[in-house]
């Protein structure tokens, strides 16, 4: 009914956190020494955690946009106030919508986040791989 609102709310929070973190990482970065090509410092800053937090934000936003379209397709969302069709169908429909948000919506948000955590673990392994290979060759 409106399950995508839960990951949507998470997407807003994660995006805000990623933007704040990106700003902090940029501030923490050392001042650009002379002779360094433009963009190289920026790319170093991008390697921070904010970049990985944007992965989660992208997954959430991507899913939310396409799910919002699906809800529009099924008439569960409308492009005018009160936006959620259930809100015009009485208290029973609203409680049903809230129950669905609490079950399906929360599970969606949790699963996307869990998959992102898995991606962090895998990326960490991949990042360490060249060093491990170099050590083995030495």
């Amino acid at each position, binding site marked *: 009914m409106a*399950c995508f609102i839960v990951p949507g709310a998470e997407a807003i929070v994660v995006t805000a956190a990623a933007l704040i973190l990106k700003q902090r990482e940029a501030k923490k970065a050392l001042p650009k020494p002379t002779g360094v090509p433009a963009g190289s410092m920026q790319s170093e800053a991008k390697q921070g955690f904010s970049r990985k937090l944007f992965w989660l934000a*992208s997954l959430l*936003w*991507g*899913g*939310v946009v396409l*799910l919002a379209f699906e809800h529009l397709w099924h008439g569960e969302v409308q492009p005018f106030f009160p936006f959620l069709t259930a809100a015009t169908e009485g208290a029973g429909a609203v409680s049903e919508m809230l129950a669905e948000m609490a079950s399906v919506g929360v*599970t*969606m948000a949790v699963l996307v986040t869990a998959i992102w955590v898995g991606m962090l673990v895998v990326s960490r392994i991949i990042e360490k791989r060249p060093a491990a290979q170099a050590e083995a060759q030495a």
Partner: protein
Amino acid sequence: MTLLLTVFAAVITTAIWYQKNDKTLQLGLLCWMFWGASIMWFVDAVFEYIELRADYFTPALEDMINDSFLGLSVIALALVIWIVVLLIKDPRGVIKNRLKK
């Protein structure tokens, strides 16, 4: 069917993204959209399966056609979003060069 079509789109897009390894194509955007939606629709499918059990796998023909149509529309929407973002960002400067001429 919507979930299936989105998963296929996600896998194909990710394979192209890996093969091309070209940031200027902005294929990452498509990958995030399709995978995000696939995960969320998977959760939806699990909840529906818990409710319907075996009946989940034998949908009515009309529902299947509607879901397929929805799946294709979702893919079309994602592609439109991707192409609009690509043209606005214009990483290769193609649009900029055309406008300068």
